[in-house]
C-alpha cells in the first residue's frame, strides 16, 4: 500500500468508513511507516478539534429546523397588517402616535432586514412620490423626521420615503445612497449625518457625503461647517465634514464654495478646504479618485453592471502604471473584493486586442486573487487570452478555486506554445461541462477559441 492510499484509508478510518477488508492492510502499512503514523495522530487531533469547534453549529442547525417547521405550520401567524403594501394602516400609524410609528418601522425592519439580501417578497412601494428615498444601504440607517425631534431615531426601511427636514444618519457599518425626487442623489459614507432641507439643499453635520447632479438637472447646495458649496448640473462633489472644518473635492463639473463674502470656484480634480473660519485662497490639485474611494463601495451595491462603477474601476486601472503610487490604486480595486470582478472582466474583454499589458495583467491578478467560484467560466475563457500574464493569473485563480490545474502549470500557460496548452484547455472545457450545474454562474457557455489563440 502506498502512503497516498494509506492516508485516504486513515481518513476513512477516522470517519468510521473504512471497509473491513482494507483494515488489515492499513494496519500493516502504518506499523512500518513513521510518516503515516504521524499523519494518523495529527488527523485524530484535527478531527477532535473540528467536532468540538462546530458543535455550536450543530445546535444552530437544530434550532433552524424548528424555526422552519414553525413557519411552515398551517397555524403560523400571517404577517402583521402594518406591512400591507401601501396600506392605510401604516399611514394612520403615523398619525396615532410616534411610539407606534417607531415600533411599526422597527418591526418592518426586523422582518424585512433591508440591509440583507431580498427574497421573493419585495417591500411595498410607497404610493406617493416621496421627497427622497433610501435607494441602497449596506446596513441599518437611522432617520429622524422633522416632526419627531423629541423622539429617538429609528431605522429606515430600504426604499422608504424620507420627509423634508429629516435627519439621516449612517452607523459605523453602513453606507447608503439617497435618491432625491429631482434626480440628484446623495451618497453617505459610514458615520455620516445629514439633514435634508430641500430637494436641492442638504446640510452635512459630520462624516463624508458625495453629491451627484446629473446633466440636465438642477444643481444643489451643500452646507457644512459654516460654508456652502453650490454645484452646477453635471457635477459630482465630495464633502468631508468635521467640527469647524470641511473639505470639498470635485470629481466632475464645477462648484462654487462660499464662506461669508468670500467665494472660490473649484473644478474637477481639485479641492478646497475651510478651516477655522478661513477658506483656502485657491483650490489645490488632488487625486479625486483616491480621495473618494469609499464611493466605490456604494456603487458596487447598485449592481455589477452599473456604468458609473465600471467607469471608476477603469479609471483606477488606467492610473496604475501612470502614477508613482500605483499600489494605492491596486489596493482600492482589491478592497472591492468579488464585487469588483465584473468590471475587471469587462475591462479585460474590452482591451483584449490593445497594448495595455500592465493594467491588464494587474486586472487579471486581482480577479485571480479575489473572484468567487461563480467566475470560474470566465477564468477558463481567459486561458486563451493573448497575454501570457493574463493566462498565468487565470490559471492561478482556477487552481485556487477548484484545487486543480489539469496537468498544466502557470508557467506553461504564460510562456508555453498553444500546442502544450490545447489539451489542458480541452480538459477545462470538459470539466466545466461536467460541473457547471454546481456553479450556476453569470456565464454558462465558454466560447470556442481560435485554432491557436496565442
Amino acid at each position, binding site marked *: 500500500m502506498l502512503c497516498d492510499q494509506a*492516508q*485516504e484509508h486513515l*481518513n*476513512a478510518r477516522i*470517519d468510521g*468508513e473504512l471497509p473491513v477488508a482494507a483494515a488489515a492492510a492499513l494496519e500493516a502499512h502504518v506499523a512500518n511507516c513513521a510518516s503515516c503514523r504521524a*499523519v494518523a495522530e*495529527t488527523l485524530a487531533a*484535527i478531527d477532535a*478539534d*473540528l*467536532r*468540538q*469547534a*462546530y458543535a*455550536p*453549529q*450543530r445546535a*444552530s*442547525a*437544530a434550532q*433552524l*429546523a424548528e424555526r*422552519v*417547521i414553525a*413557519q*411552515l405550520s*398551517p397555524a403560523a401567524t400571517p404577517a402583521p397588517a402594518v406591512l400591507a403594501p401601501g396600506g392605510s394602516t401604516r399611514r394612520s400609524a403615523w398619525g396615532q402616535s410616534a411610539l407606534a410609528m417607531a415600533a411599526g418601522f422597527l418591526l418592518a425592519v426586523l422582518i424585512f*432586514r433591508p440591509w*440583507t*439580501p*431580498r*427574497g421573493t417578497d419585495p417591500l411595498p412601494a410607497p404610493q406617493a412620490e416621496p421627497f427622497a428615498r433610501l435607494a441602497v444601504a*449596506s*446596513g441599518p440607517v437611522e432617520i429622524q423626521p422633522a416632526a419627531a425631534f423629541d423622539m429617538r431615531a429609528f431605522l429606515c426601511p430600504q426604499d422608504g420615503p424620507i420627509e423634508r427636514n429629516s435627519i439621516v444618519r449612517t452607523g459605523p*457599518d453602513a453606507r447608503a445612497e439617497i435618491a432625491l425626487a429631482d434626480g440628484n442623489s446623495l451618497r453617505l459614507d459610514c458615520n455620516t449625518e445629514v439633514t435634508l432641507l430641500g430637494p436641492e439643499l442638504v446640510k452635512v453635520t459630520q462624516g463624508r457625503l458625495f453629491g451627484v447632479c446629473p446633466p440636465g438637472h438642477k444643481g444643489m447646495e451643500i452646507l457644512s461647517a459654516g460654508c456652502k458649496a453650490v454645484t452646477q448640473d453635471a457635477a459630482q462633489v465630495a464633502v468631508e465634514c468635521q467640527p469647524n472644518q470641511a473639505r470639498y473635492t470635485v470629481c466632475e463639473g464645477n462648484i462654487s464654495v462660499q464662506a461669508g463674502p468670500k467665494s472660490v470656484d473649484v473644478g474637477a480634480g481639485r479641492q478646497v478646504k475651510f478651516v477655522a473660519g478661513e477658506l483656502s485662497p485657491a483650490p489645490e490639485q488632488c487625486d479625486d479618485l483616491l480621495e473618494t474611494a469609499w464611493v466605490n463601495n456604494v456603487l*458596487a*451595491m447598485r*449592481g*455589477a453592471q452599473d456604468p458609473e462603477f465600471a467607469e471608476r474601476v477603469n479609471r483606477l486601472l488606467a492610473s496604475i502604471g501612470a502614477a508613482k503610487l500605483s499600489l494605492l490604486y491596486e*489596493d482600492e480595486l*482589491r*478592497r*472591492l*473584493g*468579488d*464585487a469588483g470582478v465584473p468590471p475587471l472582466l469587462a475591462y479585460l474583454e474590452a482591451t483584449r486586442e490593445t497594448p495595455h499589458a500592465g493594467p491588464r495583467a494587474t486586472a487579471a491578478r486581482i480577479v485571480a*486573487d*479575489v473572484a*468567487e467560484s*461563480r467566475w470560474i467560466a470566465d477564468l477558463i475563457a481567459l486561458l486563451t487570452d493573448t497575454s501570457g500574464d493574463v493566462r498565468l493569473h487565470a490559471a492561478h485563480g482556477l487552481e*485556487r*478555486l*477548484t*484545487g486543480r490545474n489539469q496537468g498544466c502549470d502557470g508557467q506553461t500557460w504564460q510562456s508555453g506554445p498553444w500546442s502544450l496548452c490545447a489539451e489542458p484547455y480541452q480538459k477545462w472545457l470538459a470539466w466545466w461541462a461536467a460541473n457547471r*450545474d*454546481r456553479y*450556476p*454562474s*453569470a456565464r454558462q457557455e465558454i466560447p470556442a477559441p481560435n485554432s491557436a489563440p496565442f
Partner: protein
Amino acid sequence: MASDSELVRLAQAGQSSGYEELARRWSARVLALCHAKVRSAHTAEELAQEALLRGLRSLATLHEPAKFGAWLCGIATRCCLDWLKCGQARQVSLDALSENYTFRGLAHSAAGPDDALERSDDQSRLVAEIATLPEPYREVILMYYYDDVSYQDVALALGVSTATVNARLTKARALLRERLSEMQR
C-alpha cells in the same frame, strides 16, 4: 428510519410529519453548504432558512423524491449565488478587506465574529484555515462536521460519489495539516 423518498411522499400527501422530519434531517447540511458558499455563519443561517422554506414549500414540484437532497442543495446554492450576485457580499468582504486584502486575509477575516465562539486557539486557527480552503474542500468538510453524517449522506447532497467525498476530506485535512504546521514553525 424512513427514507427521504418516503418522507417526501408523506409531505406531498399533506402529512406534516414528512416535512418536519425532512427539515430536521437536512437543516445542518443546508446550513453547512451555505456557510461554505458565503463564508459567514450569520448570513448562512438566513440563507439556509430561506432555502429550506423555498424547498419544503415547493415539494409538489419535485418529481423524483429520491433526489430530494441534491434538489434541496441546488436551491440552497442558488440562494447563495443570488445573495453573492446581488452584492450583499460586500458587506462582509469590504469590511473584511479593510485591513488585509490577500485571499488568506479575506478568508481569515470572513470567518466573522459569530464564528469566534468559545474556542481554543487551535480550534480558532482551524476554523480560520477552513475558510481559506478551495470551495470543494470547504464544502465537504463543513458538511461533514456540521452533522453526524456518513460519506453517503454527503455524497447524496453534493451529487458526487462516496470516493470523491473521501478524497476531498483527505485533501482538505492534508491542507489543514500543512497550514497548521507552517504556522507552528
